[in-house]
């Protein structure tokens, strides 16, 4: 079970659920930007969500199966084909030896995921296979690399209906320890502001833009450096917010106005440049209810998997893809 990388986009890395326990050494968690997509891929292949997958930021690549290999495609939908025949996203597929999987640019969202049966095998460093580019742990995947996988048997031809999260929307936030550094006027305005995702974004964080003034805290320049967690909304010197992502720094002096709930981080990370974002403050009790529901949705994903071709809607969809692409003739 392995895939040889023939072509690859500029920002593809191996990711699992990240490494825990090294915050005190200045090393943040890393891990998939869209944890839900990691669980969806695991459900489609009937394996553990701890398996590593290829995270493809914006653009996929071309992969050749050196051996028969099961794959699943999740996260930001991207145009995908096997030996020229379009294949459905959010589904699992079988590659026979020598077949070529081509994955194009994201049609919606940012981060697409390529999962292989058995999980991508790579050296485990401090308990995780996650690349952490800013810490120089691992590197981007390059043409010529081999994505090897562990022993694997199982079905393919399964699909999942993904939860919609690829065009921005409302992110639920809780107050955090620095929220009170902002006065009520600033907090109210923050909660009413229609933000757009800016153009500056990577696995460390994503910039938000809005019309009107920035958001400054009291004594902003004299704040002691404190712990940072993914999901924190950090105000930079200019008062424009960044949502911090899995490769964020572990400490910092810029104040954080609030923290996005873990259950809404997939939506945050998948929001494309220019798409709208609003923040809604919830209490810890409300947040716990949302969090518990998310955990239970993750746990139920394996039961949501359905056969790919039984649903006439999908068959019609598949045909329309084929007509558009024109690569399949009636006599094939």
């Amino acid at each position, binding site marked *: 079970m392995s895939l040889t990388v023939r072509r690859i986009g500029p920002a593809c890395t191996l990711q699992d659920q990240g490494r*825990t*326990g*090294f*915050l*005190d*050494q*200045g*090393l943040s968690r890393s891990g998939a930007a869209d944890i839900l997509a990691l669980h969806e891929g695991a459900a489609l292949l009937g394996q553990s969500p701890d398996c590593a997958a290829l995270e493809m930021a914006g653009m996929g690549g071309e992969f050749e199966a050196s051996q028969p290999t099961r794959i699943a495609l999740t996260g930001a939908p991207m145009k995908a084909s096997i030996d020229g025949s379009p294949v459905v996203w959010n589904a699992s597929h079988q590659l026979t030896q020598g077949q070529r999987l081509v994955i194009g640019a994201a049609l919606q969202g940012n981060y697409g995921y390529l999962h292989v049966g058995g999980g991508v095998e790579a050296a485990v*460093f*401090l308990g995780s296979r996650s690349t952490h580019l*800013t*810490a*120089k*742990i691992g590197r981007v995947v390059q043409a010529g690399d081999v994505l090897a996988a562990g022993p694997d048997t199982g079905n393919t031809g399964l699909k999942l209906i993904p939860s919609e999260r690829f065009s921005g929307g409302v992110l639920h936030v*809780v*107050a*955090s*320890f620095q929220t009170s550094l902002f006065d009520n006027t600033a907090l109210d305005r923050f909660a009413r502001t229609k933000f757009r995702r800016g153009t500056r974004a990577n696995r460390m964080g994503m910039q938000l833009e809005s019309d009107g003034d920035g958001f400054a805290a009291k004594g902003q320049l004299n704040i*002691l*450096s*404190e*712990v940072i*967690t993914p*999901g*924190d909304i950090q105000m930079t010197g200019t008062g424009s917010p960044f949502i911090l992502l899995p490769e964020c*720094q*572990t*400490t*910092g002096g810029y104040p954080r106005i609030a*923290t996005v*709930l*873990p259950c809404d981080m997939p939506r945050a990370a998948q929001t494309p440049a220019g798409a709208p974002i609003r923040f809604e403050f919830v209490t*810890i009790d409300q*947040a*716990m209810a949302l*969090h*518990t529901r998310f*955990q239970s949705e993750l746990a139920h994903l394996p039961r949501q998997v359905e056969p790919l071709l039984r649903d006439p809607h999908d068959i019609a969809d598949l045909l329309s893809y084929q007509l558009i692409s024109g690569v399949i003739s009636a006599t094939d």
Partner: protein
Amino acid sequence: MTPPNPFPLVRTVGLDGALVTFGDAVTEPANRAALAFRAEIERQHWDGVTETSASLASTYIRFDPVNVPHAEVTQRLAALLNQKDWYSTPLPEGRRLWCVPTVYGTDLAPQLEEAAAAAGLDPEEAVRRLSQTRVRVLTIGFAPGQPYLGPLGPEFNIPRLQELNPMVPEGALVLAISQFVLFSGPTPTGWRHVGQTAFRCFRPEMAQSFALRPGDEMLFKAVSREELEHIRDDNADGSGGATCQEITA
């Protein structure tokens, strides 16, 4: 009338964290308290705690709020805080003194003169003081293995730069607000680049990836540029010619 002292202060961090803050400035007792309190929580292995860390004056506890509700964590933290005076606890055991060869100034560390001027010293005197001050690892953070070190004398309480230094290399010793940071990788910074070492704080390819521990002490002794180049010729272990000894007292 002075307001009542709010510290130690327990606050929430997002959905799944708590922060115990021992002061609003970096003081020796607050830093000791943060280190000791974190060590005690690690020692107690509370159910549901996934990760802890200490920053300059705070201890952070991340937990699974589904298994341990916020109220329970807050209650346990309050009980532990009441057990003793954390501000007077000793520093962690197993601390070490690192003596790291450092080139001050030259084109390797071009902001020494500027930093000396800001401290009201001539460059030679600044080097003499900086190279003879034993500083402590107050916390490790921002980037992997990267220490914040202090305190330096009050004359070095100089502000951060207005304009970012676009890039300083790994091993750079930078200075602001009476602290050093020893960079673990190339990075832009608002601190002044006063010294250059060949010491690697983060060595992911080695069995022991992180060189330093909070509470360790460091001394950045002045060497010539030639000496540093000689050290770099044979620096496979990443130590940059540093010596390391246990602190026994």
